[in-house]
């Protein structure tokens, strides 16, 4: 019926040839290998950190007043995790994602969540061609094949749970089954957004789907008057297309991100004390009362329905390691785990139904309460 785009070949750049040479020496001579390996890692880390910070700087020039959000998105990119953005209408969520997609290069697909969207709409669509013959073309998920790097699901909470289910597999396994075969997306990163203004005709994301997102980032309207003034009066920010076009395409090569992400995760080894601290933070997410956390008008023992999942905690540590790397450290500190605790944990902690309607009020208090209750050391 149709075939996806061919797999991209590994590029033979000078740096790749050099790295392969170092790998060969390392396998032949273990002592020399250790030295070269360290040198290689340091060099790679420095190069990629420079690129990452440049990428962040570029995005900050396009989407102003959202530096914390952009830093979290950058962490998610290098932790290879999916991101759920939540915020009001017109605060720059879509612009941010388009800018990220432009900077990452690769293929970008987007779908709008609607109440009548069905899973098949992501896989294929049918139409009559000019000759009047029915045709089947790949949907947004399959269209770009393995080169799909950024998949943007706009207004995800308007789609039905069946669509969420299809997305689950694509997000967690990077593959879907269609037309009697499996399609793989090794570089896919899903960005979804939902606005918090409208709740009618929306479907709350199931816990399993939320758990597959590395982060849930709240995007708020900037509060700085100078930023608001720029957004209002500077015509540069009125034309989003030309704004996005100003970002260097392929400033981060999407097909190299998995490798550097793996290297970051392998290289940064948390100390036993840090492991103990992170474990306490995890346990506190399930039983905050045990750690002395108290919230006003809340019966602490009955507050939590479910704490963070093991998958969530692995995402949490992955994000913390990327933060440490971006701060030019190979040592993981408590400040790294604290910095990503809110964005990686808030959507994984499920409040009891009686408190769920106060989630927006209670969750920030709970997260801050946990961070203020657990000491390290």
């Amino acid at each position, binding site marked *: 019926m149709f075939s996806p785009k061919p797999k991209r070949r590994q590029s033979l750049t000078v740096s790749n040839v050099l790295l392969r040479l170092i790998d060969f020496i390392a396998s032949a001579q273990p002592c020399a290998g250790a030295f070269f390996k360290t040198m290689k890692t340091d060099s790679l880390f420095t190069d990629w950190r420079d690129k990452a910070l440049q990428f962040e700087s570029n995005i900050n020039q396009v989407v102003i007043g959202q530096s914390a959000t952009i830093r979290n998105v950058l962490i998610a990119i290098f932790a290879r995790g999916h991101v759920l953005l939540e915020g009001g209408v017109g605060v720059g969520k879509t612009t941010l994602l388009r800018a990220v997609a432009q900077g990452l290069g690769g293929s970008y697909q987007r779908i709008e969540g609607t109440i009548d969207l069905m899973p098949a709409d992501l896989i294929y669509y049918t139409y009559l061609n000019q000759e009047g013959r029915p045709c089947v073309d790949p949907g947004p998920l399959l269209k770009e094949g393995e080169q799909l790097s950024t998949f943007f699901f706009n207004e995800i909470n308007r789609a039905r749970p069946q669509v969420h289910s299809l997305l689950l597999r694509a997000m967690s396994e990077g593959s879907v089954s269609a037309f009697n075969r499996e399609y793989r997306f090794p570089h896919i990163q899903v960005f979804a957004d939902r606005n918090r203004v409208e709740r009618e005709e929306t479907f709350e994301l199931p816990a399993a789907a939320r758990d597959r997102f590395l982060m849930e980032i709240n995007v708020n309207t900037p509060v700085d008057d100078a930023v608001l003034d720029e957004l209002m009066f500077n015509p540069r920010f009125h034309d989003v297309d030309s704004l996005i076009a100003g970002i260097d395409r392929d400033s981060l090569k999407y097909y190299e991100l998995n490798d550097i992400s793996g290297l970051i995760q392998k290289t940064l080894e948390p*100390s036993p004390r840090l492991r103990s601290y992170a474990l306490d933070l995890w346990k506190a997410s399930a039983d905050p009362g045990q750690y002395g956390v108290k919230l006003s008008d809340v019966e602490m023992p009955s507050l939590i329905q479910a704490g963070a999942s093991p998958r969530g905690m692995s995402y949490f540590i992955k994000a913390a390691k990327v933060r440490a790397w971006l701060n030019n450290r190979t040592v993981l*500190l408590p400040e790294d785990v604290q910095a990503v605790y809110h964005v990686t944990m808030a959507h994984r902690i499920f409040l009891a139904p009686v408190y769920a309607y106060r989630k927006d009020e209670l969750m920030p208090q709970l997260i801050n309460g946990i961070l203020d209750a657990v000491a390290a*050391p």
Partner: protein
Amino acid sequence: MRSAGPFYSADKCFISQILKYGRFFLVYSLFLLVACSEGLPPPIERFEFETPKPFGYVIGDKIRHRLIIETRSGIHLESASLPTKGDLNRWLSVDQITVRPVSEHLSEIELTYQVFYAPLEVKMLSIPGFTLRFKQGEQSIEQLVPEWPFTVSPIHELGVRKEDGNTYRRPDATPTLISSQNAWRALSGSLALGMISGWLLAFRYGYFIGFSRRSIFSRANRQLKKLQPNELGLALMIIHQAFNQLNHKPLFKHRLSEFYRRRPEFKEIGPDLEWFFNFSNDYFFGGNPSVGADEWSALRRLCQRCVELERG
């Protein structure tokens, strides 16, 4: 041959005259010496018996006698010759005997008697005399203390005033009390001052239950002094816990600015705190800490500075 002439006879006569008058002169001189010289001083050179008025005593009154005795050197009083404390007879007892040597030869003896005689009319009584004995080598010397007569009076009312055939009795007039207001004021002031001082000290050292925050680093410092330099991890934990307690929540390096807003007095040791948190991060999370005597001393110094800051 020498003849015994008149000259020889004259010489002999002259010498015999000298001897005759010389003997007379010697006897006369001795007589004068004996006549002019005093005999040996007596062993008790001075004895004075000082007594109070011999009248106007009533039952229960105390009578004090004082003996002043000056002796020759080498003479010592035998204390056994003094009356013993306690009852002398049925109405007289010796309350106190004090022997006070004033100098090598001079002593004062004070005797306090108490009278328990209840006379129905004025009556003459006597404190019995006794003999003081002194010792000089083997020789014993005695000094008589004479008896002392006095009168005691009854304390009951004259017979003219009687009620219902019974002797009229009434208590003593109530004495006017000396005003104790000033003493009470002084006592209250002293107590208030003491309490305020105690309160201030307790506040300063954080002994109040509600103000335990002022003794956090004092306790940490005491714990730190018990540790050895090789227990650096424990020392770091103790200081971290002290900061966490003071901050009401865990304190991390990246939250120091917030901490300074709450406790601005700690800003003056900002560089030390920066060093502490960097060192702690290296030790606990970096896995490659450089530990030496300098670090240990720096930790002790930091804790001591924090003690001073928390005390204000």
